[in-house]
């Protein structure tokens, strides 16, 4: 028994290595010159240089894409919150056939192949003269943020004990006051996680951004992917640096997302 336990632990440590090593290697490569990357044997000892990071961060296209990404993500996440949270609350508090169907409708939006949305939207935005604008991206992404916010927030609202809400009602709160003053704060931790998920989803989105932008409204993932086409050789160091920089925002939310998963999945214990 103890033997097999040790063996299992060793295997899991190997898995941790599988997760982290490629990322650490990318991080190292981001600080290497090309001569140190293009070697027959992997080089662990080298003189670190900041050239790659500086090159990436000083490019006009990267800065513009960063601004685009931030504006597009934040606005569409806010739209998702404003429209999605109340809808999720209504679905959680009034379980009946209609809200059941609506919940399924929201979920089924996730079944849509992105290509099936992106191709017609490209033509629509071209016709409206809005192609390659932040506004078009925000409107398009709102479909994603609203539906994912609803989907992930319903369990959060279901966890709010009915007794608290009823007590507030007895004290003279209206239904709207109950939502804003009781349900939202009580469920806040779970809801925050849901919102963080919708941010990560939009920050990472690639296909729609690739089809709906060409220059002005390009987001960071698009600009990062285009770096592999700079000049003749693939600039490995620069690409590694771009990968690291692009990955930082989602990883900053790691703690929040992990506690979201804990609160969603541990509810049965109570």
């Amino acid at each position, binding site marked *: 028994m103890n033997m097999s336990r040790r063996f299992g632990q060793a295997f899991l440590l190997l898995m941790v290595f599988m*997760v982290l090593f490629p990322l650490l290697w990318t991080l190292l490569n981001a600080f290497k010159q090309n001569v140190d990357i293009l070697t027959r044997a992997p080089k662990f000892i080298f003189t670190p240089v900041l050239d790659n990071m500086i090159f990436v961060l000083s490019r006009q296209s990267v800065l513009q894409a960063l601004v685009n990404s931030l504006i597009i993500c934040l606005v569409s996440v806010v739209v998702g919150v404003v429209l999605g949270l109340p809808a999720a609350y209504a679905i959680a508090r009034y379980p009946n056939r209609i809200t059941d169907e609506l919940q399924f409708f929201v979920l089924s939006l996730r079944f849509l*192949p992105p290509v*099936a949305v992106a*191709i017609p939207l490209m033509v629509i935005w071209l016709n409206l003269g809005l192609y390659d604008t932040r506004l078009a991206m925000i409107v398009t992404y709102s479909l994603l943020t609203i539906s994912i916010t609803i989907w992930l927030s319903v369990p959060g609202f279901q966890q709010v004990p009915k007794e608290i809400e009823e007590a507030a009602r007895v004290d003279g709160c209206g239904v709207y006051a109950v939502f804003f003053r009781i349900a939202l704060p009580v469920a806040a931790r779970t809801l925050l996680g849901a919102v963080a998920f919708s941010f990560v989803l939009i920050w990472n989105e690639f*296909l729609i951004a690739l089809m709906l932008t060409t220059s002005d409204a390009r987001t960071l993932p698009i600009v990062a992917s285009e770096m592999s086409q700079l000049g003749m050789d693939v600039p490995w160091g620069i690409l*590694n640096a771009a990968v690291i920089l692009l990955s930082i925002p989602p990883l900053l939310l790691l703690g929040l997302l992990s506690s979201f998963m804990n609160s969603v999945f541990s509810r049965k214990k109570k």
Partner: protein
Amino acid sequence: MFRQKSLPYVFLVPTILILMILAFVPLGYAINLSFRNMTLFRPDSSYVGFENFVNLWSDRRFLNALWVSAKWQVITVTATMLAAVFLGVLMFETLSPRQRNIMCLIFLVPVLLPRVCAAFVWRFAFHPLYGIFTYPYRAITGEPLEILSNPNLALWAVAYVDLWQWGFFFAVIIVKLLEALPHQPIEAARLDHARTWEIHAYITLPMLRAQLVALTLIKAIESLRSFDLIYVMTRGGPGISTETLDMYAFSQGFIEAGRISYASSMAVIMLLLTIIIFTIIWKRVRA
């Protein structure tokens, strides 16, 4: 009284209306496009009936893309679920709760990475001459190891990256689900000298059946969004060996020919297939 009853309507109607507009306008437009002969370079177009759809069935690349997509779905969903259940049970059995929490945090990292980043990380790793993943092979044989340029291996390599992102993530979910199960049945089985694998095969996993089915469905839905990985790692190549439906629709509509209508008809077929298949499965699972 009206104020008290109005909440579900006020909270739901505007949101659902906006969602419907955002979803159905593009879809209706896609269906409209699929019956025309529009290209990016010729703005005027006319209706051609089912011509695009008829042409699709004699298009070898489309049939190939259907086949690649089907393979992709089966490989990634199966691999993710098997790995996640195995790792989840292993973590549950061999680690203390504290160790488990730390490992869960680490296992969440790959899925949070933008898929573009994950794809680049592994594209370097798979590089035939300088990749870290191919280094052991090079060191032993002295030959470069071609992975992404090998038509037989490329799809597996990309699927491996998908597994790297999703398998660990689902393992975390399965650990959390196992932790939330009541302890009594497990302990009762332990007292009866059931083996560890028997406990999970006959008690815990059957108890989690509904959740496992839901996870499988979610993975199947997310596997449809493989475009970024394939686009960065292989662009559908070598040849057309990793060209999935969305990749082919993209290259028909945007890169090669600008055949917007033709690409739309493919998108419409994908749409019908996914909506019909997933709605049937989802409804049946919930019933």
